């Protein structure tokens, strides 16, 4: 392990050379930043991982059933488990997807589930990311660089190999493929995650394509290969829903493929992840995920939600108003660590303003108990210091639901911050899943 610590700078230099960056929008400007790597890996013991894996598979299975239900029969709404307006007022709900059944009925092929480990030893899910969760490439590349710097670290520790991510991705694409090649569809090299798109294409053997490389004719998606166009059977698109198809969604989109939705609706191409998934990872819907598990699977949820209150319900509103100073308030319309307000950081006047905002638009906010989660050591200036960290686990769904035995551990570099989102300037670590020996 000491060996790895010595290589911190070297690994970071290599990452910089590879262009392992992420981009953030701040004050209307786009900036690209390096994503600092910390060499001390997070280790998850085999028996803990078993529970985590089971819980993740259960959760993603239920979320997929929910999506099929919402864009189909809507049983969960008719049965009164979720109030209808949480679905139809969600910006993630896309009426344009009503009635579409994706290949094999799978909506969320690549799910990024964000968790934290509480001091009580329990994993809490903070957020489900079912649209286009990014970040798998960071630990993948970092592991490779660490392996190069210090091969014996991986010989002497029982770390599960994580190099199969590309193979898992390929398997999922193959399993939903309707006949044709696999494509990773990127908005282009100015996108924050472009390096990841090209890396995953390389790892999964898919063709990396931009909008100008693709077209739809007669309800079929084609890739403009050097000779004749080639049919595309599965497209892992890293373009968000609203820009995906200018003839269905945002008409001014220049990065989409016109009539892609027409081809998808006809069942001629698999789109990973399905458009419209935002309705299931909405912060307001999050509250209902344990209920979905009970409803669709008739099982007890294995993973816990962070204790959450919906001001929409009168008793939750009363609790939120009374305890607002200890709660974290999240704006359901915001993502990437924005719109997260910690009551304890506010002055009495600011608290009153926040209360007023919540009372005015109860549906717009959720309130959560601040979880006391376990800190992880990071290596800074030659010593270990403790920082807040979370884990993004990647769950891949094709014929089976498979959890990638690794994950992206992000930490906050600011010792006082609880927000570990990479948009907020944190760093990352490798995540070691240990074998049972």
């Amino acid at each position, binding site marked *: 392990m000491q060996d790895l610590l010595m290589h911190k700078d070297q690994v970071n230099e290599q990452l910089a050379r590879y262009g392992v960056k992420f981009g953030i929008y701040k004050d209307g400007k786009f900036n690209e930043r390096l994503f600092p790597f910390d060499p001390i890996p997070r280790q998850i013991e085999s028996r803990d991982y078993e529970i985590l894996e089971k819980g993740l598979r259960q959760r993603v299975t239920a979320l997929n059933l929910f999506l099929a239900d919402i864009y189909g029969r*809507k049983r969960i*709404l008719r049965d009164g488990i979720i109030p*209808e*307006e949480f679905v*139809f*007022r969600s910006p993630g*709900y896309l*009426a*344009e*997807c*009503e*009635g*579409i059944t994706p290949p094999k009925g799978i909506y969320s092929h690549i799910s990024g589930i964000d968790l934290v480990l509480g001091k009580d030893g329990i994993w809490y899910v903070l957020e489900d990311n079912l649209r286009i969760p990014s970040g798998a490439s960071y630990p993948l590349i970092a592991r490779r660089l660490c392996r190069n710097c210090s091969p014996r670290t991986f010989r002497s520790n029982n770390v599960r190999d994580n190099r199969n991510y590309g193979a898992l991705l390929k398997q999922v694409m193959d399993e939903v493929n309707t006949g044709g090649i696999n494509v990773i569809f990127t908005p282009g090299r100015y996108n924050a995650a472009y390096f990841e798109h090209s890396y995953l294409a390389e790892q999964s053997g898919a063709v990396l394509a931009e909008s100008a490389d693709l*077209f*739809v*004719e*007669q*309800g079929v998606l084609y890739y403009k290969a050097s000779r004749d166009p080639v049919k595309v059977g599965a497209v892992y698109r890293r373009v968000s829903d609203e820009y995906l198809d*200018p*003839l*269905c969604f945002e*008409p001014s989109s220049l990065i989409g493929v*016109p*009539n892609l939705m*027409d081809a998808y*609706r*006809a069942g001629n191409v698999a789109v990973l992840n399905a458009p419209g998934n935002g309705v299931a990872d909405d912060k307001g819907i999050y509250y209902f995920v344990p209920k979905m598990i009970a409803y669709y699977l008739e099982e007890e949820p294995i993973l816990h939600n962070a204790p959450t209150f919906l001001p929409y319900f009168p008793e939750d509103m009363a609790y939120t108003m009374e305890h607002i100073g200890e709660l974290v308030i999240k704006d359901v319309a915001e993502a990437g660590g924005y719109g997260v307000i910690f009551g304890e950081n506010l002055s009495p006047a600011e608290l009153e303003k926040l209360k007023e905002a919540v009372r005015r638009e109860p549906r717009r906010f959720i309130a959560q108990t601040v979880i006391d989660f376990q800190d992880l050591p990071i290596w800074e200036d030659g010593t270990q210091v403790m920082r807040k960290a979370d884990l993004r686990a990647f769950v891949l769904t094709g014929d089976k639901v498979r959890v990638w035995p690794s994950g992206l551990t992000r930490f906050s570099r600011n010792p006082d911050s609880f927000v570990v989102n990479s948009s907020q300037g944190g760093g990352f670590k490798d995540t070691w899943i240990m074998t049972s020996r």
Partner: protein
Amino acid sequence: MRELNFQFSCQLSFSESVTDHAFLLRCLPRQAREQEILSLNLQVVPEGVQLFSGRDSFGNQTMSGWVPEEHRDLSYQVSGAICRDDMQEEAPEYLPCFAYPSAMTKPSPEMSGYLQELELTGSPSQKAQALAEALHERLEYVPGSTSIYTTAAEAFRQGIGVCQDFAHIFLALARLAGIPARYVCGLPMGEGATHAWAEIWQDGHWLGYDPTRNRLADETYITLAVGRDYGDCPIERGVFHGTALQTQQAFMQVWEKE
């Protein structure tokens, strides 16, 4: 029950040649329980363009196409006959999203205030009737005063608009009043331009209101497409490569079948 003949043609012209032109048409009458298609003919120029037929999430018939070669025109002509029967018993298609604001029909505070002043009472259809009448009084019909992107709130603020705006404002206020409603574009009896109106949901049926003309959108109206608002169901939408300016000429005719 009523049988109607119709004819609708549209020509898009580009000031210069364009390529890689993808389009999606909703120019055919909607096949629905309350509207049966008796005969149908569709012609598209450039000739030889292969059309792909589908149905969107709102049940509208779609025709998509792709013209990669250079061209300066795209035109289509539809004709045929339909049978409209608003009295049939079977429940038509419904989506819960019709009860909620859509991108173009979000009500402004000004509109909420207006709705309160109206003090609508009675059944959904009575409320809708009163609303259509009030809007017809309040709004002025001025061709060219708005664009296809104008929202209900913007049109309401300026107090003028075209049929699309009348329909959007009607939808925003009907939904705010708790009445599920949908946007309709189509062909009313007579001749001239295509038209837009709205339908409200009551007791398992869709009832049509035309706030622009202050009348019921009855069996003399042919539905082409429906949606939450205009954005869901334009008759034609396209994207192409080129710097050309696009102009459009459309003409429609509907007459009662002998």
